[in-house]
């Protein structure tokens, strides 16, 4: 029958077999318009100059790097350097992508932006950019997430955005994306969907990566300048995967640099309550892209779990799937308990309160440091700050009723070897 089979049309936006555009036809023209606009913009000195000016005068780029020796003492005395995306305006790496997409929105002549958010970091960044550029702004957020990230909901409202709590499904990030896509299908004429991570239909995975690539470009130069050499490993947390792709990408051609993504192990892979896609999932389609996906044997999406709303997502950016399958990057996971230990440790040893998402990367660094020993140089992307997570953390450590954490917990690394996958 092959002679009868029509030629498949072009399949843009693939990373190996991953990626693509699995969305309703109604959105295809908008994706093509966006693809053309971002291609033109990225070679347009005016656009790139405006973005650079915003990064310098508004975001606070370049973000600094900080060496954390007291924390590193718990990681086999490896040398650990943090890339401080938490010091960006709005408190996370998300602003890099959002400012660029908001500029693109204006170039495309659209007046309204929508976004999804899990932890609220992307929502706050989008609301901020919308306020700055005079765009109407609607943020979709799972109802569960609006409760655990109440402070960020208030921030978004303060910035003039409408926040829509999404009660359907698991009422988390994946459901917020469903509703954002429904809104986009309906209002695509005047609305741009500022997708916040390296997933979704082409060109989002490529475009969001390119807008975050600045993280790795800066960090590579800064680490070389400080230490005279490249790091042995670059470590970042992976939900959708935008901060990880941002810091990884500049190092992909540096064969000696180990790229390590840390997923949310939740209550442990064996418990089924996790977001460790690479440890326990198979390829499938969700939200317009083909990547690794937590699904049942019928192809229905399974609910993920993580103490951090930003990593609580059943799929992962397609380029990560490609890096994993080609062996260029390695993906591990940290459980909620390991994450909270690393969170507390960074607070107590260095005076930095990280986002719970970023604390996954720190938990990964503790493990990798112990494996590689004192000669190792690790670069960790501290993707966001933990102000938004204070309620969750205070509850976890029993600080809300006036209790204090027992002295010294931070100095006692927990037992290792919980069966985590070494991929």
């Amino acid at each position, binding site marked *: 029958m092959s002679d009868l*089979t029509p030629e498949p049309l072009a*399949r843009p936006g693939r990373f190996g077999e991953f990626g693509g555009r699995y969305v309703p036809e109604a959105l295809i023209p908008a994706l093509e318009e966006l693809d053309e606009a971002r291609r033109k913009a990225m070679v347009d000195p005016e656009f790139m100059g405006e973005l650079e000016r915003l990064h310098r005068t508004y975001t606070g780029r370049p973000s600094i790097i900080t060496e954390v020796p007291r924390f590193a003492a718990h990681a086999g005395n490896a040398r650990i350097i943090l890339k401080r995306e938490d010091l960006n305006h709005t408190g996370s790496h998300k602003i890099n992508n959002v400012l660029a997409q908001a500029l693109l929105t204006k170039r495309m002549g659209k007046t309204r932006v929508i976004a999804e958010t899990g932890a609220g970091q992307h929502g706050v960044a989008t609301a901020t950019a919308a306020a700055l550029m005079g765009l109407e702004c609607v943020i979709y957020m799972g109802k569960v997430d609006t409760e655990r990230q109440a402070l960020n909901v208030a921030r978004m409202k303060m910035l003039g955005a409408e926040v829509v709590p999404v009660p359907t499904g698991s009422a988390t990030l994946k459901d917020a994306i469903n509703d954002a896509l429904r809104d986009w299908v309906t209002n695509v004429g005047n609305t741009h969907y500022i997708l916040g991570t390296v997933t979704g239909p082409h060109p989002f995975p490529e475009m969001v990566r390119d807008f975050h690539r600045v993280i790795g470009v800066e960090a590579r130069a800064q680490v070389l300048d400080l230490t005279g050499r490249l790091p042995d490993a670059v470590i970042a947390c992976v939900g959708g995967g935008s901060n990880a792709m941002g810091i990884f990408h500049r190092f992909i051609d540096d064969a000696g640099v180990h790229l390590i993504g840390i997923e949310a192990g939740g209550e442990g892979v064996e418990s089924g309550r996790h977001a460790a896609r690479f440890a326990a999932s198979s390829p499938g389609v969700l939200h317009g892209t083909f990547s690794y996906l937590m699904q049942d044997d019928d192809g229905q999406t399974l609910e993920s779990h993580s103490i951090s709303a930003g990593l609580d997502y059943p799929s992962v950016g397609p380029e990560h799937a490609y890096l994993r399958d080609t062996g260029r990057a390695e993906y591990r996971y940290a459980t909620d308990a390991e994450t909270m230990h690393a969170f507390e440790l960074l607070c107590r040893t260095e005076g930095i309160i990280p986002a719970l998402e970023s604390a996954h990367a720190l938990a990964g660094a503790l493990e990798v440091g112990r494996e590689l020993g004192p000669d190792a140089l690790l670069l960790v992307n501290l993707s966001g700050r933990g102000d938004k997570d204070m309620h969750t953390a205070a509850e976890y450590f029993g600080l809300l009723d006036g209790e204090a954490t027992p002295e010294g917990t931070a100095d006692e690394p927990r037992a290792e070897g919980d069966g985590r996958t070494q991929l």
Partner: protein
Amino acid sequence: MSPTTTDLGVGRVLEQCRAENRAALVGYLPVGFPSVEGSVEAMVAMVEAGVDIVEVGIPYSDPLMDGPVIAYAADQALKRGVRVNDAFTATRAVRDAGAPPLVMSYWNLILRHGPTAFARELAAAGGAGIITPDLIPDEGGEWIAASEETGLDRVFLVAPSSTEQRIAAVTEQCRGFVYAVSHMGVTGARTSMGDAAAVIVNRTKAVTDKPVCVGLGVSGGSQAAEVAAYADGVIVGSALVRCLTEAEDLAGGISALRALVGELAEGVRSGR
């Protein structure tokens, strides 16, 4: 021997409707709501009441093209344990009742099942083909090959936002009919159809002789008549599903369903 298009497809029904100088009535229900047996009974009742083609919806956890009514029914069906294989049971029943069944499914369910295996099982159950709301032909290589092998229809969508170039490319790959989305948005009844539906049908008919059916927004007899004036088929989903979601029991739901299908069937016969 693999079945041919005319064995299983919707082409013959659409031709017959054209010969009667009327539009076809296409009715959507999700399998598994209120139960698998109940949904099958409701689909058969739709055929008896005058639906020409049945869209057998497979409930999906992330139905991003669906509005609240269909999303609610699908969610309930999933909570009650509906499985992808139940679609084949419904397909068989609809075929036995005398109408071609077209499965409507989000792509991951078919991908997970295996497109070739899905196509073979669907054809064996008497299925006419598949409507894929989130699969565009550009990404549809596997499905195009599987549908060629089995002779199943493949219905892709065109939308008011589609460029002329895309309408031509998508239409080229359709078999059975072309699904024209009446307005920008998700499924759900609307009070007015507006001009967009007629415009997209005319734009599509400018590049193809294939039948063009209109979906999204039709809820009553007068709207069906309005759309039937220019389209080859009128697709109704949410309004039919609502008969079941708002009924106190299955019997009441089916009774409401028969009444609405009767009104819609009259509508598609009075449009020209």
